């Protein structure tokens, strides 16, 4: 298994370089270093000299990929914006944002608020989606199953933004049960989490419950279910003990892969609820054309996704002893 993991980690390096290269190319197609300088220096009184000074200070005064002015090939490739800005990231040195703040420090401080919402949404969501899906399977072909499906389709059809706005309107404004938005310290944070967590769970409920229901229904036709019933097991035991266990591989595939990505936060929820997480950090960086942050977040996102996929593979061996990672 360790050979397999080591191989996967080595495979990740060219993937990360590729992702970095594509991000870099796409970003600089839209924004030249001059554009970035203008964005940072503001609209008024921006002279060409000020732009040159900014570029020189931030290291954007070099060629993008190939430095013609250098003599040997090594320097031609290394003394470029791409090389200088990319290599350090593999050592987790993300550098400074255009406003001068250290990106790694900023990420550290923003990770917790993102997790404060993403972790409960993930775990409570997973438990409730699986439970509801099993219930619907239990009541399959009854009015509960039928109306449950109708409800799921309705939930899927509504935009995420609608959940946020109507949630804020009902629970925050009309019934005044929770703060409309905000974030706090210590225990105080709990009152700010209720609404985003409910909305986070609800907005994905329709699709997830239907997906898990389909998985469970497929399992219901298997021989071992018939055997369990023949043994005289109660139906709820058949479902929660046997069917759930055997349906773990597709559940794991969907769930474990996204666990590391929980650090990245939610763009929309964080923005609307004023949560200072990594999601809103990314959005702010895109709006202010801060390439240093965008590049770091894309790198972090791809790295976490790769970790998620490796963890998924490992988790298969835990839920199904027949699987070997070689």
């Amino acid at each position, binding site marked *: 298994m360790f050979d397999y993991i080591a191989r996967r980690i080595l495979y990740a390096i060219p993937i990360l370089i590729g992702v970095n290269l594509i991000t870099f190319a796409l970003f600089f197609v839209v924004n030249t270093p001059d554009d970035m300088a203008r964005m940072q220096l503001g609209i008024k009184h921006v002279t060409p000299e000020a732009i040159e000074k900014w570029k020189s200070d931030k290291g954007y005064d070099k060629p993008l990929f190939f430095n013609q002015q250098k003599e040997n090939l090594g320097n031609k490739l290394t003394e470029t914006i791409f090389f200088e800005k990319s290599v350090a990231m593999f050592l987790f040195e993300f550098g400074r944002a255009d406003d001068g703040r250290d990106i790694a420090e900023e990420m550290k401080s923003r990770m917790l608020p993102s997790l404060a919402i993403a972790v409960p949404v993930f775990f409570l969501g997973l438990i409730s989606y699986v439970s509801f899906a099993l219930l619907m399977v*239990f009541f399959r072909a009854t009015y509960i199953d039928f109306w449950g499906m109708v409800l799921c389709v309705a939930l899927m059809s509504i935009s995420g933004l609608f959940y946020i*706005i109507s949630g804020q309107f009902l629970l925050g404004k009309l019934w005044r049960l929770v703060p409309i938005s905000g974030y706090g310290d210590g225990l105080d944070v709990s*009152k700010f989490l209720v609404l985003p967590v409910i909305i986070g769970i609800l907005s994905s409920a329709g699709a997830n419950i239907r997906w898990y229901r389909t998985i469970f229904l497929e399992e219901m036709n298997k021989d071992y279910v018939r055997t369990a019933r023949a043994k005289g097991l109660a139906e709820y035991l058949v479902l929660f003990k046997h069917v759930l266990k055997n349906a773990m591989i597709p559940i794991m595939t969907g769930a474990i892969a996204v666990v590391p990505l929980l650090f990245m936060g939610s763009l929309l929820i964080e923005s609307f609820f*004023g949560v200072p997480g990594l999601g809103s950090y990314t959005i702010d960086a895109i709006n202010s054309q801060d390439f240093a942050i965008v590049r770091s977040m894309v790198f972090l996102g791809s790295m976490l996704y790769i970790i998620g996929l490796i963890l998924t593979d490992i988790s298969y061996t835990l839920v199904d002893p027949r699987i070997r990672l070689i």
Partner: protein
Amino acid sequence: MSISCLFLLTSCELNVWNNPYSEKDAQKNALYSVFSERPKHLDPVQSYSSSEIQFTAQIYEPPLQYHYLKRPFTLIPATAKELPAIQYLDKNGNLISGESVDEIAYSVYQITIVPGILYQPHPAFAKDESDQWLYHQLSEQEIAKASKPADFPRTGTRELVAEDYVYQIKRLAHPRLHSPIFELMADYIIGLREYATLLKQVDSQTMHNHHLDLRKYSLDGLEVVDDYTYRIKIKGKYPQFAYWLAMPFFAPIPWEADLFYSQPGLIQKNLTLDWFPVGTGPYMLTENNPNLRMVLEKNPNFHEERYPVDGMPGDEEKGLLVDANKKLPLIDKVIFTREKENIPRWNKFLQGYYDAAGIGSDSFDQAVQLTGQGEAMVTQEMAEQGIRLETTVAVSTYYMGFNMLNPIVGDGGSRAKEREAARKLRQAISIAVDYEEFISIFANGRGLVAHGPIAPGIIGYRDGKEGVNPIVYDWIDGQAKRKPIEAAKKLLEEAGYPNGINQETGSPLVLYYDVTARSADDKSKLDWMRKQFQKLNIQLVVRSTDYNRFQDKIRKGNAQIFEWGWNADYPDAENFLFLLYGPQRKVGNSGENAANYDNGEYNQFFERMKNMDDSPERQRLIDRMVEILRYDAPWLWGYHPKDFGLYHAWYQNVKPNRISNNTLKYFKIDGDTRQNKQREWNTPVVGPVLIFFVLLVVGGIPAIVAFRRREKSTAILGYIDMKRVNNNV
């Protein structure tokens, strides 16, 4: 469930559940404000945008400030004893009169500050018992423990001296800082450009990020006369320089703070002067989390300053002089919460958790109604909540510009006849585009039609009949009436485009309108604009692009018609009229003249006007310049936006404006009223939640019954169920 329990535990004591503030923030004498855009810089040498100055202006004190109540805006001393004494010198250094403008080679501003002003408490000033600096050479352990200045156990202070002002002006040229006004000031302050070159050389020879002690390097144009007096020597006569002295760019920076924050370990932890300001102002930044909230608290060392005792007619009736002569600041703490979206911001204002709010277009009808005379007032619903409306015309202008290098709409034609035709075309379009309608439809009436580039409230602005643009308006029955469309059609015909057809080629006139990438919401604005041109049978082609490409087009002169805007830096006509000064052209000169307008006569007048003190003669010159502009019509003058702000009844002493930013110290809060209203407006409504749970239980009963029946059923029933499922699936 556990989250709900925690939430109830933390909320119950307040009797309201939706209070977004913790108990420690629930101070009576605190102002709850909001910011949407995170500040990028809080170093006064770098910060320029309104999102930054709302903080820096409360912390840093330049020598001058604007009178809070007087209009037009009037400069008064802040830390200075009096307004600067200005001496004028000829090229040989002899003293001459300020009226001999042509002979003036230099102006010397002498500023004397009030003795005894102290800085806010800060670790940069802390000394031990043997008078040694405590935190100027921090160990790794000390740095590891610190995440904000308050983490250092000891603080100190010291008296403000003239050297601190000089130090800050030198920082404009700092090689590692990017001051937006460096290039502008380098044209005026003697030796500033050379100083930047010197510092760059010195910096390149020292270690990266090493502290650059500017006290060691003198600057020709700056002189410290004594502890409380300093002089600034500038080129020629530049009366507007006094306005710059009221901006945080010219606020003092103590060398101790610069040295303290230059320690590499602190920079690594985002502990920099750019994020943790050190000033003498009424407030100090005690919490700096630009992602969530910024907190300003009263500076315990703030010097003696009193609320103004005089204002404008009507100020007393509005209650703006109730606190006359009271010691400032009136509020102890200001909590700025970051709120990026309009909907939560607006709702929290209505719940009483923000003390003031702007009005978005989606909430305008809920908040404001217009009387028969067009006067804006709050709706019944708002009035019942005690909310009041304050309006002010912003010292800004939004205009539509013609690229004067273009041969169709500008002066780009080779023959005088072509240029004359282009002028008439511009005049025709000026009449056709109905900005009264635009303001009514798209700005909810929040704007004033512009008759020239100068915004109201600015020295040089003309109101009433004298201020009317005769090219576009007629003065009828004491009111400006837009000329009929026939007048525009006539001008168009004279320009060689009868009914929008080029009489030489017979082809329809097509013009190009460059705008930045638009959302779906802006489509109606563009459609409206097309219709305005359609009145003259001109086809308007919209060329939408992203902001970077748009700027690029303007810089290269590739746009034909575009829209732009300007917020004044200071309340003087020069700050608007320079936008059309030839040498300020975008193309070739990288200036601020986006239309690339270049009229010799206008340029000459501008050069005279900008060096003159306010006088009737200067006003005459401004009038003549505006007259030239109206005739040439390089812009469609557009409109000056009106700021509408809503304020709760407990928020007092508010006189909004966009020029003076250090206004927090004048505001007052009636904390008792706010607390009562918050309780009254935010009683939780638990009924619907209880009903929901009851329905859930009731709805669950048949399910439980079905569950029990199924569990007790025989195997054959289960088999039949399976068959049904298989058929359905």
